[in-house]
C-alpha cells in the first residue's frame, strides 16, 4: 500500500476509533491440530531467557521462572525442553503440521539465542541439546517468506490492519489490540498509555513499575542470602517474573484471538506443504546451518522461492492486493475476446484476452495462470490496442477443459506463474564437482595454450561475413 492510501486508512481508523482491515485474505493458514504458544521474558542485552510461559493455547500455560538465568545450571529448563520434545513427537505421531504462536518477534529472537547456546552444548543434557536444536529449527524456518510454522501475533496484525496510531507505535502489540477491542472507548489514549510499559518480552522498568531494577537487586542480595531470607527473595523474584511472563502470554492469547476474529479466509496449501516439509526434514534429520556454497545457494533459493510463492498466493486469494497489483500491471484483468480451439476440451488452444490496462508486466513466453482456475498458459503475443489497453495472446498449456473461462466474453484475471524452482540435483552435482572458485582457497594454474599470435581483431575481421 502506498503512503497516501496508508495515511487515509489511518485517518479512517482514527475517525471510527477502530482498526481498519487492509487485506481480504489471511497470510496464515488455519491452526493445525498441534498448535502451541510460547512467551518469554529475557534479560535486556544479556538475551538470556529468565521466564517462559508455554503450552496449548486453550489451556493455562506452564511457567518456568529462572532464578539464576546466567548460571550454568539448566535443570530449570527441563520442563520446557520436555514440552518441545513431546510436541514434536506428538505432531509426527498424528502426522500434523506444527504451529507456534508467539506474541512478537522478540520471543523468536530469544528462542533462537537459546538455540544457539544449547544446540551444540556438550556439557548440557541431551534433552536440552534437543531443545536447542528445535529452537534453531523454529527460528530458521521463521525467516523463510511464506512459512506457516510460526505465527507472530504482532506482525500478523500489523500486516492485516491499520490503526489510528503512527506506524512506529503499532510495534506494541498491546497498542494495536486497543484498536481491536470494542470495549475500549478511546483507543488513542488507551494505546499510548499501554505503550508506557513494554510489550517486547522484557521486564518493565518505569518509575511506577521498576521490576527490572528490583529483580536485579534481589538477585544480588540472593547471592549472599541463606535459609528463610533466601526463600523470601526467591519468592519475590519468582512472583515478579511469573506476572511479567503471564502478561506476555495474555498478550499472545489476545493477539491471536483478535487476528482470528478478523475472520479472513486463506488458501495457502502450497505454502503449508513446503513449510511442513522443511520443518519435518529438519526435525527428523537435525539442523545444519548453511555454510558451504551449495547450501548457501540452496538457502537463498528457498527464500526467494518462498517470497515468490507467498506473493502469488496472496495475490490469488486477495482481491484488495489484486487491485493494487493491477495498477502496476502485475495482474491483468480483461475479457476473453477470442478462443481458438479446434476440438473443444483439447489442445491446441489459444485465447486472446482484451484488457483496458495500459500497464502490463507480462513479456513474451511468460508462463501465466488464470486466477481461481486450473488454466495456465504461455504468453505468445502482446499488442497495444489503438485506444489504449492491451491484447494478450495466450497458448493454453493446461486446463484446456475448463470451459467457463475458455469462452469468449469470460472475465478473467491473469497472473504470472511463480518460477520458484530450486535445482537441487544441479546444486548437488556442483557440490560433487567442487569447482575451485567456490571450494578452493587458491586458483589453479592452467598450462598456457599456444596462440596464433595474431591480433583478435584481425582474426575477427577475417571471419566476418
Amino acid at each position: 500500500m502506498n503512503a497516501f492510501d496508508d495515511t487515509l486508512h489511518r485517518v479512517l481508523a482514527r475517525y471510527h476509533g477502530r482498526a481498519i482491515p487492509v487485506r481480504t485474505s489471511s497470510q496464515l493458514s488455519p491452526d493445525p491440530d498441534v498448535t502451541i504458544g510460547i512467551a518469554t521474558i529475557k534479560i535486556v542485552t544479556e538475551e538470556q531467557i529468565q521466564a517462559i510461559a508455554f503450552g496449548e493455547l486453550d489451556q493455562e500455560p506452564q511457567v518456568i521462572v529462572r532464578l539464576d538465568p546466567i548460571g550454568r545450571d539448566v535443570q530449570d529448563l527441563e520442563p520446557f525442553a520436555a514440552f518441545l520434545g513431546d510436541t514434536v513427537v506428538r505432531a509426527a505421531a498424528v502426522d500434523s503440521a506444527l504451529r507456534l504462536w508467539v506474541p512478537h518477534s522478540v520471543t523468536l529472537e530469544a528462542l533462537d539465542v537459546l538455540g544457539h547456546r544449547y544446540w551444540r552444548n556438550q556439557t548440557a543434557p541431551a534433552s536440552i541439546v534437543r531443545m536447542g536444536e528445535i529452537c534453531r529449527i523454529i527460528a530458521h524456518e521463521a525467516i523463510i517468506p511464506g512459512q506457516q510454522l510460526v505465527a507472530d501475533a504482532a506482525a500478523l496484525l500489523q500486516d492485516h490492519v491499520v490503526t489510528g496510531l503512527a506506524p512506529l507505535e503499532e510495534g506494541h502489540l498491546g497498542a494495536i489490540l486497543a484498536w481491536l477491542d470494542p470495549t475500549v472507548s478511546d483507543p488513542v489514549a488507551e494505546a499510548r498509555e499501554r505503550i508506557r510499559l513494554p510489550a517486547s518480552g522484557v521486564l518493565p522498568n518505569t518509575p511506577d513499575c521498576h521490576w527490572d531494577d528490583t529483580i536485579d537487586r534481589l538477585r544480588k542480595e540472593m547471592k549472599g542470602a541463606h535459609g528463610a531470607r533466601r526463600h523470601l527473595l526467591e519468592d519475590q523474584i519468582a512472583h515478579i517474573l511469573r506476572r511479567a511472563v503471564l502478561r506476555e502470554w495474555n498478550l499472545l492469547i489476545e493477539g491471536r484471538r483478535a487476528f482470528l476474529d478478523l475472520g479472513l479466509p486463506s488458501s495457502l496449501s502450497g505454502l503449508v506443504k513446503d513449510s511442513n516439509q522443511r520443518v519435518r526434514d529438519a526435525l527428523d534429520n537435525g539442523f545444519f546451518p548453511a555454510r558451504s556454497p551449495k547450501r548457501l545457494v540452496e538457502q537463498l533459493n528457498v527464500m526467494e522461492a518462498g517470497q515468490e510463492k507467498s506473493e502469488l498466493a496472496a495475490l490469488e486469494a486477495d482481491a484488495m492486493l489484486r487491485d493494487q497489483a493491477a495498477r502496476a500491471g502485475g495482474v491483468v484483468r480483461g475479457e476473453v475476446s477470442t478462443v481458438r480451439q479446434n476440438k473443444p476440451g483439447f489442445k491446441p488452444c489459444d485465447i486472446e484476452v482484451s484488457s483496458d490496462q495500459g500497464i502490463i508486466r507480462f513479456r513474451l513466453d511468460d508462463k501465466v495462470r488464470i486466477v481461481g482456475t486450473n488454466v495456465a498458459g504461455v504468453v505468445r503475443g502482446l499488442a497495444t490496442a489503438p485506444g489504449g489497453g492491451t491484447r494478450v495472446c495466450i497458448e493454453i498449456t493446461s486446463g484446456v477443459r475448463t470451459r467457463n473461462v475458455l469462452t469468449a466474453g469470460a472475465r478473467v484475471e491473469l497472473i504470472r506463474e511463480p518460477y520458484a524452482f530450486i535445482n537441487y540435483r544441479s546444486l548437488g552435482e556442483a557440490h560433487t564437482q567442487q569447482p575451485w572458485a567456490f571450494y578452493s582457497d587458491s586458483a589453479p594454474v592452467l598450462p598456457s595454450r599456444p596462440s596464433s599470435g595474431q591480433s583478435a581483431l584481425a582474426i575477427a575481421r577475417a571471419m566476418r561475413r
Partner: protein
Amino acid sequence: MSVKGTTALVRLASNPGCEILGAMILEPGSEKRFYERVVGEPYDREFGERQSSKRRGAQFEQNAYAGDARLLREAFASHLGLAPDDVVVRNLLDDFPGTKDDARIARLSITRTLLKDAREGKPAPHIIIQPQLMLPTKPGPKPYFFVAPDLLILSPQNDVYLPGDLKSFVVRENELSKGDLARVRLQLGAQLLALMHEYDRFDKTAIIPASGMLVFSKPNGLAPHAPRIEDVAGGVEAIRIGIAAFLRHRQRVNDLRAGAEPYTVVADLQPHFQDSCLNTCVMAQWCRQRVAEAAGDLGDVAGRVLGDMELSRAFGLMTGDIEPADDHERLIARHLVDLAEQHSIERAA
C-alpha cells in the same frame, strides 16, 4: 544519562532540525532532569540504560581487554595480516585510568602522540585501547565534544588508524535492527570525524578511509565475532550536518537565554518531532503535543501526505461537513469518502 559526547552527536545527526535537542546538549546534567525542569513533573517513563546492559557492556570490554587484549588480538589478526601474538596493543586505561576530564585529557595527549608516531613511521601499537579524541565546535559555549572510541586499529594499507567500537549486544549471524545499525554507524561516523580533526591538526595530507570497525558479541557468552568493517562515509557526513545544526541551535539558544540556563528558553525553541523521537528522546511526548490533533500525530508519513492538516478537518472532508478548499483537499475528500464507503460495506457484510 546526559546528552554528551558521541551520544549528542549521534542524536543531532538523527534529527538536525530540533532546537530543543540543541538546548538539551547545552544544559548540564541529565536528560531526565532537563525534562523535569521544562515540564515541571517527574518523568514517568523508562529512562537510562538498564543495569543488565551496563553490566554486560562492562564485562564484554573487560574480557576483550584481558590478557593484553588476547581476544581482540585474535579478532583483528587476520585484518592486520599478523599472527595474534605479534599484534602490539596499548591500553591507555593502563596509562591513565578514570573517566574524569583530567584522565581524558591525559589519554588525548597520549593518543595524539601515537597517531603522530605512526604517521612518522615510528613504532606504534596496532591496537590502541580506550584512546581519546576531541571534536572542536569552537568558538562558543561547549567548544568541543570529547569522542572516545573503544579502539583505534592501525590500517594495514597505510599508517593511519581507524576507529573501532565494541558492542556487547548479541548478534547471531548478522541480524541487527535498523535502529541499532544506524546508531552504531553514526557513532563510528562521529569517531572518524574526530579522528580526521586530530590528523588535520598535524598532517593535512593524511588520507583516512571512510570506514570503521565493529565487534559484536556472539550468542554464546561474551565471545566476540570477527570484526565487521563498516562503510561510514554517509555517517561522517550526517555527523557534520548534525554539528552544523548544533552551531545554529547554540546561537539561537544563546541569543534567547541571555545568560540563563538553556532549559528556560525551550518554549521559544522549535522542536522537530519525528516518530523516532519516541524511542530516543525524553522530550518526545512534550514535543508531540505540538502536532497533536494534526496529521503528524499519525506518523511522519501522514505528516508529509496531509501536511499540517488538522485531523478534525480530514474527518470533516470525509463526512462532507467541510468543503474542500483546493484540489488537493478535494482529492483527499474523494478518496476518504470512497474508503469510508468501502469499509462500511465490509462491516455490514
